[in-house]
């Protein structure tokens, strides 16, 4: 079948601002959007730039806006899209463009780091045995630990669009991952970090993040657990 892609292109060395370019090619329904981008790059226009690595939704490199929705190019198949219409590909919103679909993600990673995304536990451990944790408690972490840092959620959030300083859902999800880890001792420290006007209270439960998450993580629920923890703390 004939497929038409309209891709937002921007090369800072020659373009004043981003513009769309169209590509028509022969595709089939089982191709992923990433396959299509490769086809364009390899057969039509080698200058097209995008990130990708694992090509099956695990590494989180190829988050982009596909027909107006944030998703991974490698996990979106043509059969999931209306190929009778032009398919519009843009970089994720709310981050500076480096080139074409490649974004400068520095700010996103800085916000991840801000929530202390690592286990903090200063109690002595026995070198030859693990800390015990019930499977139930472990599984409370699994959904949040699925996060691949693709930034689909954070850049889908209207609160992010209106406030550059907002931590965003990905960083808050990472905070959950450690606040609710029974092995961690720094929950208070992290709760202090997110308990700010630009922190968790910018989340207005809009649910865009859930729709955007390619790993089907119920991010809003996780954020709500943090809010509950915070409101309990104030009393």
């Amino acid at each position, binding site marked *: 079948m004939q497929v038409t892609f309209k891709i937002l292109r921007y*090369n800072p060395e020659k373009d004043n601002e981003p513009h769309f370019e169209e590509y028509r090619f022969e595709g089939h329904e089982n191709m992923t959007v990433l396959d299509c981008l490769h086809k364009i790059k*390899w057969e039509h226009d080698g200058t097209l*730039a995008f990130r*990708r690595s694992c090509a099956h939704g695990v590494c989180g490199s190829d988050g982009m806006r596909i027909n107006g929705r944030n998703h991974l190019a490698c996990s979106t198949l043509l059969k999931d899209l209306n190929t009778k219409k032009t398919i519009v590909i843009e970089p994720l919103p709310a981050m500076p463009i480096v*080139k074409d679909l490649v974004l400068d993600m520095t700010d996103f990673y800085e916000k991840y780091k801000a929530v202390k995304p690592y286990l903090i536990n200063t109690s002595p451990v026995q070198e030859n045995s*693990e800390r015990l944790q019930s*499977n139930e408690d*472990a599984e409370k972490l699994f959904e949040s630990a699925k996060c691949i840092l693709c930034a689909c959620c954070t850049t889908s959030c209207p609160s992010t669009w209106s406030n550059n300083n907002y931590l965003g859902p990905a960083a808050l999800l990472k905070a959950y991952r450690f606040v609710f880890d029974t092995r961690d001792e720094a929950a208070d420290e992290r709760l202090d970090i997110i308990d700010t006007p630009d922190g968790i209270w910018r989340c207005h439960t809009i649910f865009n993040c859930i729709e955007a998450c390619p790993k089907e993580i119920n991010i809003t629920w996780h954020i709500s657990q943090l809010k509950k923890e915070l409101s309990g703390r104030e009393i």
Partner: protein
Amino acid sequence: MIHKFDVVIVGAGGAGLRAAVEVPKDHTCAVISKVFPTRSHTGTAQGGVCAALSNEEDDSWLDHAFDTVKGSDYLGDQDAIEIMCQDAPRAIIELEHMGMPFSRTKEGKIAQRKFGGHTKLENPNDPNSKRIPVNRACYSADRTGHVMLQTLYENCVKNNVNFYSEYFLTDLIIEDGICKGVTAIDMATSEIHVFHAKAVMFATGGYGRAFRITSNAHVGTGDGCALVYKAGLPLEDMEFYQFHPTGLWRLGILVSEAARGEGGILRNNANERFMEVYAPTVKDLAPRDMVSRAIISEIRAGRGILGSDGTYYINLDLTHLGKKVIDEKIPEITGFARTYLGVEPTKECVPIQPTAHYAMGGIPTNYDTEVFSDNKGTKVNGFYAAGECACVSVHGGNRLGTNSLLDIVVFGRRGGKKISQFLKTAEYTEFTGDPTERTRQQIDSLLNLSGGENISNIRKDLQQNMMDKCGIFRNEKDLAENKEILKQLRQRYQNITVQDKSKVFNTDLMEAIELGNLIDIAESINESALNRQESRGAHTREDFPNRDDAQWMKHTFITKADSGELKIDYKPVVKTRFEPMERKY
């Protein structure tokens, strides 16, 4: 731009990150990676990481070592294997202490499951009793690699490790047998950066992209191994390349052995459980090389299932496991089957085929990750390698499932420790020439080529030929033909045109460099395969179907001279306590 760091680690997968965690704070350390660290290929490992923790049942590291030696088809160096398996429980406990989330047992310990080739004696007091599958693989659902990579990166963030993400490795600077650093391109600007170092560690990963059907990420192009080869240093055991039996049909996306560990069964077109014939005791949980050969043998015998595009596949049957097991134990991989093949694993079989998966061969090192410059044990001063790019050799002719995740944490740490020792007396050695020279020349010449050859066409031809002529079954005729084909591809490479001439995030240029690396890698694999006239582990010669210990129980060292001439040397296998025996399961 010139940077100075005591240690420069190239690659931010499990091995590189684990090494970085180990470097003491009073030394400067940089980690260079062509992708952001959490995008590294370690993250796609699924099923587990083995250690004889005995959390689910009695187990011992000696059984783990025995299995690894036997799985390697007696090509693995037994001293290194003993170190790895003995250190495994400590390494896993350490990951848990670092914060890695694991699935747990009823007592709250790390949960363990069965995995291919991992066994113990049915009766521990009777060495002649049969060996049965054992719960040895520690796991976190089927995202073990993902959470391991995340945990190691988190610990690097905690330790303030310096990362140079999206820096593309272009040169390894070795002068007079001393490794002095590397050069890399900042992908955002194309600026050449020199990393002057006392110690360099390569943790650059594998090269599955040398084959058409592969589970490997696009970044798996063997850049580190290729630079070592270009530097005139040897690569070891390159003919041993593992095909994982269960890649999604046509796509190669990995379906973890955990699927069979949880009870999944391979079936042919008559719905027969054919592994009963090939490996009567462990059946579907035989090691990967055997299962991959069995699958191809079934298809060749007309017992494959004909797919819509005229190619054949085999069925992986998970339907009897039930929705609960599928959703809780292997949710990710069953998700792949739904997304990419439109198959519902609770109701239908998953179409699979073998997929190029893991390099047993690579940069020769000792068990402290020090790189050898020859087959006699001469070391390259200040140069280390760990993880899939290295050949210690703990995997020999065939790696057992889960041992790759173990390899990276055990040897990443050992490398970090060895480097720390080395730094106590090491000094910076000045460059004699301009360390940017070769990189500058390479980029200029690639950008100026104008023959019009398409980069991706050459890559496709390389991958297809490696798959067809240097894949699971090999013979002299095919390999000799492939050698000529690779020479032609190298010629065609001189006629490529890089369309993108810009300096900002020029992935066209990066792909051109990666293709050059893949051609070198493919050449070294093919030549080593042509040379080894026996069948052992993952290297199967139809014209030499038997293992020949008298002639071939030795490692291959391949080097390329400046003249382009290839030379093969050998190194004996280290044997400790495990006598070679016939490999039956």
